């Protein structure tokens, strides 16, 4: 048993370190102290001191800070959603990307972007809203089909169903793109996932959904513990399974949908991070959820940093790197699972 202070202390320190590091590094290096000064003055509405290069101010505030914040929010959203899906489906391989939820959200996002849909009242939130709706629809259909195939919902069944739906939804996206006749390169780049050149507007788009989704999940941490023993067992323990399950699926879809809307499909974050967090700090969802969130944010900030520096000045889509890390982890967990059963 590790004390909670240590768990959260280490995780937060890593997150803050990753943020400072990522803001600092780039084609122009910004000293860490200056970053602190720029952010500090901005936060307290004070003028930046004369000793900071004005160029730094603009790099930090206009380019790197929003990028890092967005990466952090996307990473946190995907990681906590992954942790929740895994607990709910008692399946350490469940993850928004693998379950097809990300693809579902993409359909909504692509449709919104390329047909230029804008719903009244919600305006700029049309994009995340439609992504969330298609994400939720997808997860409900995937689970319905998985249950039809195999009442016990084995790990493999759920994954297979998710992959089938991903493939299907992927071709729908291709169809939309073909119909609109837009430039393919740009769309593929978006589909592979990226947090570059989005600005504070996108941070503003994801933030409310991130807060709402995370709040719902954190409120259901104990229920997730019970449900990770199986739905029947959870009901024996007094959990209102039907209601809680729906809440968790909605929250997971909100988080995934909003993340996809602002960054495209970034896979495997929701798999790798909860897995790592569970290994390090234990499976209790009361701590697993917030710790996954913090670690996920730090992880995506660092992978994004890697994506823009590894073949600089070219920028690699961040989804490529998460998949490079995530797919082997997926394989290892699958092999371990099979061995146990």
């Amino acid at each position: 048993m590790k004390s909670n202070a240590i768990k959260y202390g280490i995780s937060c320190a890593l997150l803050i370190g990753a943020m400072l590091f990522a803001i600092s590094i780039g084609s122009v290096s910004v000293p860490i102290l200056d970053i602190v000064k720029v952010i500090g003055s901005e936060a307290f509405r004070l003028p930046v001191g004369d000793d900071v290069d004005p160029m730094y101010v603009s790099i930090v505030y206009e380019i790197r800070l929003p990028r890092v914040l967005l990466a952090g929010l996307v990473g946190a959203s995907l990681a906590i959603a992954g942790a929740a899906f895994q607990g709910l489906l008692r399946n350490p391989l469940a993850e928004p990307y693998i379950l097809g939820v990300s693809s579902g959200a993409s359909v909504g996002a692509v449709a919104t972007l390329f047909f230029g849909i804008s719903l009244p009242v919600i305006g700029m939130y049309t994009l995340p809203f439609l992504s969330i709706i298609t994400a939720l629809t997808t997860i409900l259909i995937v689970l319905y089909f998985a249950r039809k195939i195999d009442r016990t919902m084995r790990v493999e069944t759920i994954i297979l169903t998710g992959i089938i739906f991903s493939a299907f939804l992927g071709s729908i996206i291709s169809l939309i793109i073909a119909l609109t006749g837009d430039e393919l390169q740009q769309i593929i780049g978006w589909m592979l996932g990226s947090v570059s050149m989005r600005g504070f507007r996108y941070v503003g788009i994801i933030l409310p959904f991130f807060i709402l989704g995370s709040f719902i999940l954190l409120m259901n941490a104990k229920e997730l513990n019970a449900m990770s023993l199986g739905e029947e067992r959870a009901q024996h323990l007094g959990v209102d399974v039907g209601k809680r399950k729906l809440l968790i699926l909605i929250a997971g879809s909100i988080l995934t949908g909003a993340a996809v809307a602002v960054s495209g499909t970034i896979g495997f974050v929701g798999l790798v991070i909860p897995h790592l967090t569970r290994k390090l700090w234990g499976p209790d969802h009361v701590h697993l959820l917030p710790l996954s969130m913090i670690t996920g944010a730090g992880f995506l900030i660092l992978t994004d940093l890697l994506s823009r520096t590894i073949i600089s000045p070219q920028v690699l889509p961040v989804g490529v790197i998460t998949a490079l890390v995530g797919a082997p982890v997926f394989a290892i967990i699958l092999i371990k699972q099979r061995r146990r059963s």
Partner: protein
Amino acid sequence: MLLIKNASGGYDGEEIVKNISFSVNEGEFFGILGPNGSGKTTLINMISGLLDLQQGKIEVAGRNIADYSKKELARKIAVLPQLTPQVFPYTVKEMVSLGRYAHHSGLFRSWTKEDEEIVQRVMRQTNILEFADTSVMEHSGGEQQRIFLAQALVQQPKVLLLDEPTNHLDLAYQKELLDLLRKSAKEKGLTVVAILHDLNLASLYCDRLLLMDEGEAKALENPDEVLSEELINSVFDTEVIKQAHSKIAKPQLHLMPSKKTWQAKKLWSIDETNLSFSTEQIVLHSDLPVKTISSGIVGAGIGWYKYFVNRHVDENYYCNDHRKEMRTYLKGRGFPPAQTVGMMTAIVLEDYSYGIYEGNGFSILVVVTASVGNAVDSSRAKPLVGPVAPGTINTWVFVNGSLTEEAFIQATITATEAKAQVLRDLAIQDRKTGTVATGTPTDSILIAATQQGKELDYAGTATELGALIGNAVYQEMKQAISKTLNRKKAAEQG
């Protein structure tokens, strides 16, 4: 505590449990029995609230379970599930603590001192405290079952439901678990409702049993009534034999394997060729075990035995633990003690007598060794003080036939009456009382039957078997005693 009234239920509109009614009292250990697919698990799922009723109602503590919230119900009813593989490495304590969920209301209700105390107490009670901080996945099936029992018990339920709780547990864990449940029922008033597939365990632990067949209640009574051969044979479609537990007043059922698998290919019998004599021992070696009731030193009581040994010992034989000494003796001569009935006698073994007697469709072999040196009149006997001398009249009766238990008892009576008559006819007296003796203080008897061939229901003197035993024992004993008396006389004359 629990009331089930005209309850019907099942899955997808199909009625699996049909119109079941019963009630379970507080502190009762209630068992549910039935073949596979008889609706036991469905019934348990209906009681635990997993499955809605199609008809009827179920009440817990006087209130319909449909009117409880999920959490309220979990504070009344807990379930010990069948073991399922664990996915996440929760520690034992985390796992047990999950049982307190139903007692936490409100979003921010935190872990209290009371919660901690209950968890600690239950972990101690279920013997899992020592590994509270280890991962559940590391533990054996028996330990995991205890962990989940602890999880159910920290719910502090009034009713505990169990679905085949002893599945996958080895013998010691089965007993340990059921002992613990029974203790909780009797001492803490926990109402226990358990599906059990082992009828004999159900008999030992349950106060009452519900026997289900095709979704209906076939019987609802105490174990003695429900576990009748007729009911079990018809519901389970197999042959069982009911017998009393040899140490406690509970019935036990013995499964009858198909006759083809265990019965000898052809009729066989015991005759003089199975006997061998020496100055040290008289041995009867049967090819197959025979059912025996005897008062020997080893293998006494009722059992199935292959070897029968009447061993000569010195008149002054004395041993602290004569049973152990006898077993050592038998082992040393190649007789497996578990398959042997062993007796002792102090007389010269040449003075035996035996004979084969043919009945109609059966036969008997009688072997007697006898001396009447310290004969007593049993109607005037007093307990002996000091070491008891080895038996002096040992009677063996082997029947080539199939005997009922009452026939074994009657055979014992008949043989004993014949013995008394021999002593009377030979005018052998109890020296202390001067009256006619009926036997010696340490006589042994053995009735054995091959349990195949003709079925012999009775062995009183009114029956052919009884008459034959009476005659045969009389003849052989008279001859054996005469031999001994003659030898003595010859010795006295010098």
